[in-house]
């Protein structure tokens, strides 16, 4: 690991500097995470009076729990859908903006601010727009003959949370694609143009392949966002319903642990989620290293 050529010789000072960060990390991150791992091998009786070791039983139960399997399935639809929608729109806006000489700064300014809106607030706003009795969008959908009701229709509820979760993320992806597009050498595009490649062909044979590192990075980041940071969207709008159709994994951990008080199962779910985040983070860092050494 890198340091400076010359360093300060003080022995105690570095520990003093690191102390606050490490104290918070140990007390509020490592210790609770360790507790979750331990609890995932235990089971409490109904009154919380005694705990027994049950080995992997909590994990095995998860595999046979239809609500957990459903939650896995819901997440497997929700997270890729959010990723696809928000990365796709971000790319479209960035590519359009990259074409323009005039007005690009104004467009950029008007597109990035939703990043600042809290997921919970975004959820409530879309929930209002989609309100079955007075909302604008159901009114428009009714005009084409569709009766929207996200409190009863699982598909409608899923569409609602996907849109609400993607909305604020588009601006983030847009910014990264903008940076990626600016890094593409103009000479390469010009050479292709001289060889007779039109704008569409240039995009698919040059621009998009050169953006693939950015796209991959954003895919991972957005999957992490969709799996973990969208808790407020679900909590503020559908609450995982109707019929568990929007009960994503991170929401289920909360419901089982805090409302259901099923600590063993909730802990096992936490550990599974931690494993998923660690995997995604490692993938992302491997990619970053590859880019640096390229």
């Amino acid at each position: 690991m890198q340091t400076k050529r010359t360093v300060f010789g003080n022995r105690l000072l570095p520990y003093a500097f690191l102390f606050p960060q490490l104290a918070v990390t140990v007390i509020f991150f490592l210790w609770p995470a360790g507790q979750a791992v331990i609890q995932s091998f235990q089971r409490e009786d109904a009154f919380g009076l005694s705990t027994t070791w049950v080995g992997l039983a909590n994990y095995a139960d998860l595999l046979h729990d239809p609500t957990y399997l459903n939650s896995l399935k819901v997440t497997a639809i929700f997270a890729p859908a959010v990723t696809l929608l928000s990365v796709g729109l971000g790319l479209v806006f960035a590519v359009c903006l990259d074409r323009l000489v005039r007005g690009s700064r104004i467009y950029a300014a008007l597109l990035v601010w939703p990043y600042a809106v809290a997921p919970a607030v975004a959820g409530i706003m879309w929930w209002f727009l989609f309100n079955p009795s007075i909302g604008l969008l159901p009114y428009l959908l009714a005009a084409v003959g569709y009766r929207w009701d996200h409190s009863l229709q699982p598909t409608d509820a899923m569409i609602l949370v996907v849109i609400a979760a993607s909305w604020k993320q588009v601006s983030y992806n847009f910014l990264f694609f903008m940076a990626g597009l600016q890094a593409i050498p103009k000479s390469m595009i010009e050479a292709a143009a001289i060889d007779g490649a039109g704008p569409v062909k240039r995009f698919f044979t040059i621009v998009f392949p050169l953006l693939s590192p950015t796209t991959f990075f954003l895919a991972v980041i957005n999957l992490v966002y969709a799996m973990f940071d969208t808790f407020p969207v679900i909590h503020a709008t559908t609450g995982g319903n109707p019929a568990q159709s929007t009960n994503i994994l991170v929401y289920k951990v909360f419901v089982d642990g805090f409302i259901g008080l099923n600590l063993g199962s909730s802990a096992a779910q936490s550990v599974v989620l931690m494993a998923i985040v660690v995997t995604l983070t490692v993938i992302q860092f491997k990619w970053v290293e590859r880019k640096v050494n390229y």
Partner: protein
Amino acid sequence: MIDRHPWLDALAHAVLIAGVLLVAFPVYVAVIASTHGPNDFMSGLVPLLPGSDTIANYRSMLTDGLSSSGAPPLGGMLWNSLVMALCVAFGKIAISILSAYAIVYFRFPFRAVAFWMIFVTLMLPVEVRIVPTFKVVADLGLLDSYAGLTVPLIASATATFLFRQFFLTVPEELMEAARIDGAGPLKFFRDILLPLSRTNIAALFVILFIYGWNQYLWPMMVTTKSSHYTIVMGIKRMSDVADALPQWNVVMTTVVLALLPPVIVVVGMQRLFVKGLIETEK
């Protein structure tokens, strides 16, 4: 511009205008809703043009709150959100810049261990370890306090990495010169490194302020009394009532007040925001 395709330019403008409208639309509807009285939401369609109850809505929510749902005045919640966002942002920056300084400018046993311990925080979002973390905070007696709201969130791997990357690019000669002139580690940090880090600190501040302001699950867990509610989590309590008894105008008033401060920060400091966003992910 390589070749001219007027129709493609027109298409690009059209797509971007559609994008801008799409992005702004939910907020427009929320702002409009916050200018109407409660009776405009009983039936039919949400209003799409401004109403005349703007001042009444905002005044009553800021000073009285929504008594029917036990929601406190928004003034206090906005204050709590501001305190939380500022403490989280400054706390994260302070402890991260110190740890990055220790890691880059000193050599000591367990340096790599410390680095990896900080790295781990990146991987454990509060959502996945929520129950045991809540228990720790409860055992420490930090429920319903600003310390409980902020301290557990101020460890930051991203901020530490950002400062580490930046310190590694600071020329070696600066420190060597400072040492020759007799500056110790504290003086070097305060008089040279800190002023050099100004832009990074500002960029990071924008990102972290938004992060702190937008916290939802954590304040919901650690606050049981309305005196410590933050505005983003407070909306949920109002909207729960809203479903039974439509009070959309005041819910949307709250929405507007909750999203305005971080949006103002992003719009006002756009350049720093973009820098902070792109650099923290490297």
